[in-house]
């Protein structure tokens, strides 16, 4: 008899390592989007990435005559499309009377609709383009198809994003908390804004293979919202969100591997949502239960004494 881990399917190890990393990275990066109240920006980036992924595939195929679904081709495409969608949405909401919500929504429909259009067109080509079959998986994610090369890409891009986050921590923190003050201190707000956007796009890009473009938003927002419940320090929040994301990612990979018919993405999201709900209810100070109890205590105290509390 060998130790149990030797029996682990090497494919499963790759997949679990990938989803865990994706969960951790997007959890940490999501904190900034969450605190800037830009949770849904990630939704737009991830949907737009479909156009970038399919577009890059088509472009590489047209130029070289062959294309593969390697992340080395698809990641740059997704980066370009995600950034373009955000920049367009931003300039629409600054320069027209349309609000943020509407301009983000429009860009989401254009880029995702366009991506779907292009995808269906690719699938209709005859003779069929080799390798196109997996493109479809970006919509709902297909963690099981993750290769070793994909895993290295996830490590590289995710690790890079975390390093940037670490190096620029203080600047990103003050910019997120008080942008006017940050500007008054000479911090380049446009650069920092672009940087945060770029980090978000990087997080999304490595995540869409696992959970798909539609559910990616949950990996950014849900762990961050859960982590916010437990702490009042930004660094602890980022670490906790990364931990929650990693747990959800790892759990999702293992659960869906044990029950063969379960798609990974939704399982990851539901695990993260469970963590969020528990945090929402149980967290010591901000939790619903703790707050209800605090209110009750306050109500039981005679009004004069309660009024004196600050």
């Amino acid at each position, binding site marked *: 008899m060998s130790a149990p881990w030797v029996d682990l399917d090497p494919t499963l190890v790759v997949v679990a390592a990938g989803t865990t990393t994706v969960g951790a990275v997007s959890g940490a990066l999501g904190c900034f989007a969450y605190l800037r109240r830009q949770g849904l920006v990630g939704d737009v980036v991830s949907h737009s990435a479909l156009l970038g992924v399919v577009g890059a595939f088509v472009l590489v195929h047209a130029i070289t005559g062959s294309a593969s679904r390697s992340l080395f081709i698809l990641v740059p495409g997704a980066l370009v499309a995600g950034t373009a969608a955000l920049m367009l949405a931003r300039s629409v909401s600054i320069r027209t009377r349309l609000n943020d919500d509407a301009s983000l929504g429009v860009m989401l429909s254009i880029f995702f609709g366009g991506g779907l259009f292009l995808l269906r067109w690719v699938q209709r080509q005859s003779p069929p383009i080799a390798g196109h079959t997996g493109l479809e998986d970006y919509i709902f994610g297909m963690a099981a198809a993750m290769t070793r090369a994909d895993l290295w890409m996830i490590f590289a891009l995710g690790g890079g994003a975390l390093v940037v986050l670490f190096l620029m921590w203080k600047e990103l923190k003050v910019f997120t908390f008080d942008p006017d003050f940050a*500007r008054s201190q000479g911090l380049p707000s446009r650069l920092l804004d672009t940087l945060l956007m770029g980090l978000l796009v990087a997080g999304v890009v490595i995540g869409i293979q696992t959970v798909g473009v539609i559910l990616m938003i949950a990996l950014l927002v849900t762990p961050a919202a859960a982590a916010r419940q437990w702490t*009042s320090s930004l660094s602890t929040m980022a670490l906790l969100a990364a931990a929650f994301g990693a747990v959800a990612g790892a759990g999702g990979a293992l659960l869906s591997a044990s029950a063969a018919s379960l798609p990974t993405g939704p399982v990851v999201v539901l695990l993260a949502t469970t963590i969020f709900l528990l945090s929402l209810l149980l967290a010591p100070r901000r939790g619903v239960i703790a707050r209800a109890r605090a209110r009750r205590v306050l109500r039981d105290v005679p009004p004069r004494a309660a009024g004196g509390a600050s």
Partner: protein
Amino acid sequence: MIQGSDLNFRADQPALDVEGLTVTYGKEPALWNADLRLDRGSLAAVVGPNGAGKSTLLKAALGVVPRVSGRVRVLGEDPARRRRLVAYVPQRTSVDWDFPTSVLDVVLMGTYGQLGWFRRPGRKERALALHSLEQMEMADLAGRQIAELSGGQQQRVFLARALVQDAEVYFMDEPFAGVDAVTEQSIASLMGHLAHRGKTILSVHHDLATVPRYFEHAVLLNRAVQAVGTIKEVFHRGNLDRLYGGRVPAGVPDLAPS
């Protein structure tokens, strides 16, 4: 410890010299051709009706919002080279106080400008921040989560963050708004102390009744600067009637005749 040319200034240079400052957000300019000169040690209130561009004046002078035109000099130099000598206290309500951070952390943000990129605040910065908090009588709350502060305490934290910069020129956006009476007194005396030490303060202020008590100079602003001078020179009935279009808010003491 003085390093870099941007800390050297001549004592006779005006602390703040603004000319032709114009800002527009939409069709109408929010600030029009504003000229303003403050000597060192000035303690000046910016007053004017709603939408007069008071906050915009501060932000444009600081370079926080883009301007159509204008030249700003802080102690004789471009403000970009004087950042370390300029402190800014934004409106208290402009930030999310539910942000996960502590009182000390917010004050430490005042040291970020001097630290430069990548360097983290260390022991020295923490000591400075704690000292500023002591000045604002907030040292006990250094570890407190900012969401748990009262309005007055929030304002004290913002002021401590400005103090830690040890600046020469202070821009404050309604530091008295929504604070308790005790905090109001301590902010007023802090301003007095700073001005006494030759620091310069330009503060947006809403409560006309307290202008003469807390300030020595006034800037009357309604998109354009209508008057600048000592309280005695410019803060009188005639000017205020003109500034507010005859609807001077209640509570203004009857001042010197126009």
